[in-house]
């Protein structure tokens, strides 16, 4: 092998991964942590080398087990109007909703929906309305809204979704990062498509990553919580109009299909108008306006009983015309040398990127507050999950991946570039 091409050819051949590397990698995949395990750091670099090469199948969380082991669900006592009670420990944004949520529809003891006035909490709204106003039926699927809560940033709505032969028991369950009695919490998902808007405010958007997170009551009935994030802080009561155009879900026996869309999808039209009031008592927006030397930092923090939203300050990386031109000329020189056709100058820098940094949060007790998938470029959304938060310790690092995966407070303190302490009243 005396030529560069031979060298490259050699590189491209498959190589055998040493057994020890393979085993450690597989062991890691078999023992992926839940978020709570991550908090303890017990899965971090064990440094342990094992000699067994067997690769056991990873565990798929069974969806049906949840239903069979939940005596409340198995007994089929009235559910609608009390769905938060069934889901509030298991969903990603867990917490005690029962004293804060407004009941929209309540199922009486005989199991039939009626227009009786609701008999629950003091925040019940418009209890003279028929419960059926919060229900929509199409294509054999009925969505009945149960309770609603709004902290000003998000509307949390529970609903029962009913469909004969829905095969809901076969929906796979996913870990939701919490624990109850030492067991990792799980939930199943119904995916939705459509759009939403606010009746008075006019704001709205598409239903993209808004899913009903919950559990199957049986093959025909699903109890779910959908969270709609509002674009701006909502300060007045309003009506949430939800227009579902598709309901879909996976089948755990069909996880390896080449089709990227859900196993079952039902197109239709389900329109709900949900009045909600704003919880102004239990929420606060705290101005922070603190940055690191590079200008990255935290503008403000919003805290409600169920979520923490950290608003980020991310300066735009700006280049002078001279910088861009110099870099472009260097690039052209190199690409020409490599025999490639040059790209136009206007395509060279096609966007103004914002500076990235890493942020992670801990409570006053050193417990990590987990981030949620609904993060956007300018904010980080954290799930409270029942934690008592009187103070937030926010850690910032210039390296965008330096600390986010760490759960040990001391380790994070060592690696972070900046710390912000936010007192919560």
């Amino acid at each position, binding site marked *: *092998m*005396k*030529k*560069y091409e*031979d*060298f*490259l050819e*050699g*590189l*491209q051949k498959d*190589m*055998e991964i*040493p*057994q*020890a*590397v393979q085993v*450690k*990698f*597989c062991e*890691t*995949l078999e023992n*992926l*942590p839940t*978020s709570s395990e*991550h908090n303890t750091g017990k899965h*971090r*670099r*064990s*440094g*342990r*080398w094992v*000699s067994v090469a067997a690769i056991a*199948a*990873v*565990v*798929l*969380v069974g969806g049906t087990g949840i239903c069979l082991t939940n005596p409340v669900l198995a007994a089929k006592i009235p559910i609608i109007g009390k769905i938060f009670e069934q889901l509030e420990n298991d969903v990603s944004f867990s917490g005690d909703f029962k004293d804060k949520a407004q009941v929209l529809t309540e199922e009486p003891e005989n199991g039939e929906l009626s227009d009786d006035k609701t008999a629950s909490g003091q925040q019940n709204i418009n209890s003279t309305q028929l419960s059926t106003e919060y229900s929509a039926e199409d294509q054999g699927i009925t969505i009945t809204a149960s309770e609603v809560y709004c902290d000003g940033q998000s509307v949390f709505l529970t609903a029962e979704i009913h469909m004969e032969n829905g095969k809901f028991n076969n929906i*796979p369950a996913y*870990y*939701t990062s919490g624990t109850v009695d030492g067991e990792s919490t799980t939930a199943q*998902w119904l995916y939705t498509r459509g759009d939403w808007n606010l009746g008075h405010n006019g704001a709205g958007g598409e239903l993209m990553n808004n899913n009903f997170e919950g559990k199957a009551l049986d093959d025909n009935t699903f109890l779910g919580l959908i969270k709609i994030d509002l674009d701006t802080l909502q300060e007045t009561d309003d009506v949430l109009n939800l227009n579902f155009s598709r309901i879909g879900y*996976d089948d755990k026996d069909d*996880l*390896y*299909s*080449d089709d*990227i869309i859900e196993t079952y999808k039902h197109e239709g039209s389900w329109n709900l108008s949900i009045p909600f009031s704003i919880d102004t008592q239990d929420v606060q927006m705290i101005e922070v306006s603190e940055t690191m030397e590079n200008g990255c930092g935290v503008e403000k923090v919003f805290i409600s009983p169920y979520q923490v939203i950290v608003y980020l300050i991310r300066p735009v990386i700006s280049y002078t015309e001279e910088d861009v031109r110099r*870099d472009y000329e*260097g*690039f052209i020189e*190199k690409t020409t*040398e*490599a025999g490639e056709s040059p790209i136009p100058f206007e395509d060279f820098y096609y966007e103004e990127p914002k500076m990235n940094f890493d942020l992670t949060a801990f409570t006053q007790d050193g417990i990590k507050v987990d981030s*949620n*998938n609904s*993060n956007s470029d300018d904010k980080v959304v954290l799930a409270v999950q029942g934690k008592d938060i009187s103070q937030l310790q926010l850690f910032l690092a210039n*390296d965008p*991946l330096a600390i*986010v*995966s760490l759960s040990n407070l001391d380790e994070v303190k060592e690696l972070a570039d900046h710390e912000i302490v936010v007192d919560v009243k």
Partner: protein
Amino acid sequence: MELLIQKAKRHDKEAFAILMTQHAQSMYKVAKAILKNDEDVADAMQETALTCWEKMGTLKKNEFFKTWMIRILINKCNYIYRQKARFTSDSVVPEVMIEESAFANAEWMELLEHLEEKYRTVIILYYVEGFKVREIAQILDVSESAVKGRMTAARKKMECFYQQEKEWEMV
């Protein structure tokens, strides 16, 4: 792979495990280009799997999964490399002696080791993993011109090395 990514983003452990296993070969090659011994490579792959698992939800475009994952891997490798450099005087004996992989004796790997790490990584990403220059720039967080420059320099260094080897053989 798209479905696996979708499911992994929903924290489906099985889908995630399959996804990562599919990329194990690529991960090993890239990590081996930066780190010398297999124990460090295994650590880097483990850390990468854990970080990807935790951060899957932040992956905005599924088609960039591999780019995103390799970038995390390289960051992990660099971190381990720096840690090793810092504690190089420590005489830590691993619990089990690691048998270096068979390919360690392969001539091409030996030749690759003549390159500095920054050149090795670019060569592996471009020629072995098939990433485009723009993707490599994103992975390494450098400009595209820097990637091109490194590739050119790597090629020249290799040519120089071959030439030297040829001259030595003639002596």
